[in-house]
C-alpha cells in the first residue's frame, strides 16, 4: 500500500516539476506570472468536470437517482 502511494506521489511530483521547468527559465515573466501559467496549465475544464463528477459519486441520494436514470 505504501509503495503504491509513494509511486503516485512521485508521479504527481514528476508531473509538477516537468510543468514548472517549462516556465522556470523564462526571464521575461515574473514569478507570480509563472505561478499563474502553471495554474492555468494544470487546471483544465475536463479535469474540473471529472473531479466534480467524482464528488457527485460520493453523495448518497444522487447516486440512487443516477442509477434510476440510467436504467
Amino acid at each position, binding site marked *: 500500500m505504501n509503495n503504491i502511494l509513494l509511486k503516485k506521489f512521485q508521479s504527481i511530483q514528476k508531473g509538477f516539476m516537468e510543468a514548472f521547468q517549462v516556465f522556470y527559465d523564462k526571464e*521575461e515573466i515574473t514569478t507570480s506570472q509563472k505561478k*499563474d501559467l502553471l495554474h492555468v496549465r494544470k487546471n483544465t475544464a475536463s*479535469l474540473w468536470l471529472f473531479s466534480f463528477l467524482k464528488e457527485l459519486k460520493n*453523495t448518497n441520494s444522487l447516486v440512487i437517482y443516477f442509477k434510476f436514470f440510467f436504467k
Partner: protein
Amino acid sequence: MLNCSLIGFHTFDSSRNFLTSCKKLLLINYESNINGDLAISYFGRNVIIRVKHVSSEPELISKEIQTQEFKNIYQMLKEKYKGKFIYVSVDNLMFLAGVRHKLEGYRRFMREIGEGCSNHNVLVQYIYQDDSIICEDERMKILELKDQIKELFKNIQREFGENSIEIVEKKITYAERLGILAAGHCFVRTCRRESFSLDIYEFLNLKILLDDYTDLSYILSGLSGVTTSLSGAVKVNPFDVITFFI
C-alpha cells in the same frame, strides 16, 4: 438549492455569501466534513459545498489555433501594429462591462505618458452586442452608451493619432476572438461586476501554446471573480479611472 446533495461554487466569495445567507435566513450553521469539505446539515441530510473554479480547455484552443480564421486576424493585427505595445480587450456591450471607464482611463494614461511614449501604445477594443436584450428601455440605454463610446473614441483619435486606438463593433467567432487575444501583449478587463469570465484563462493558454511571453501582463478588475485565482494580475478598481493603466 438545499435540496441538492452537492452545491458547487467557483469562488470562495460566492460560497461565503451562500453560507451566511443560510445562517441568517434559516439559522443553519456549516460544519466541516470528515473529508474536509464544507457541509450543511439540513433535514437530516448533508449538503456538501464545494469551491473549485472551472478553467478553459487547452486542447480545444490548440485546435482553433490551426484554423485560417485565427491566423488571418492574428497576422493582420500583428502586422498592423508592429513594434507597438498592444492592449487588447473583447467585451459585451453593456454598462457592467465598463468600456466607457476603460476608454476614459486610457485617455488619461496617454496624456500622462506624453507624446514621445504615446506613439508606442495601442488599445484594440472589440465590442459585440448581446441579442438577448428584449426590453425597449434597455436598448435605448445601450444606444446611448454606444454613442458615448463613439464620442470618446473620436476624441482619443483626434488627440493621439489614428493608430492609438481601434474599436471594432461586430459579432466575432470563437477562433477570431482567440486571434485577437493572442495578438495582444496586455489583456485588459475592467468590468464593474462579473462572476467568472474565462477570457483571461484563454489569453494565458494562448501565450503558452504560442510560446510568446514578450511583455506579458494582464490588468483585471478587482470586482471580477477571476482576480482571486490569479496572483500575477494587476488588480485595479474599475471606478478609479485615473489609475487604470498606471
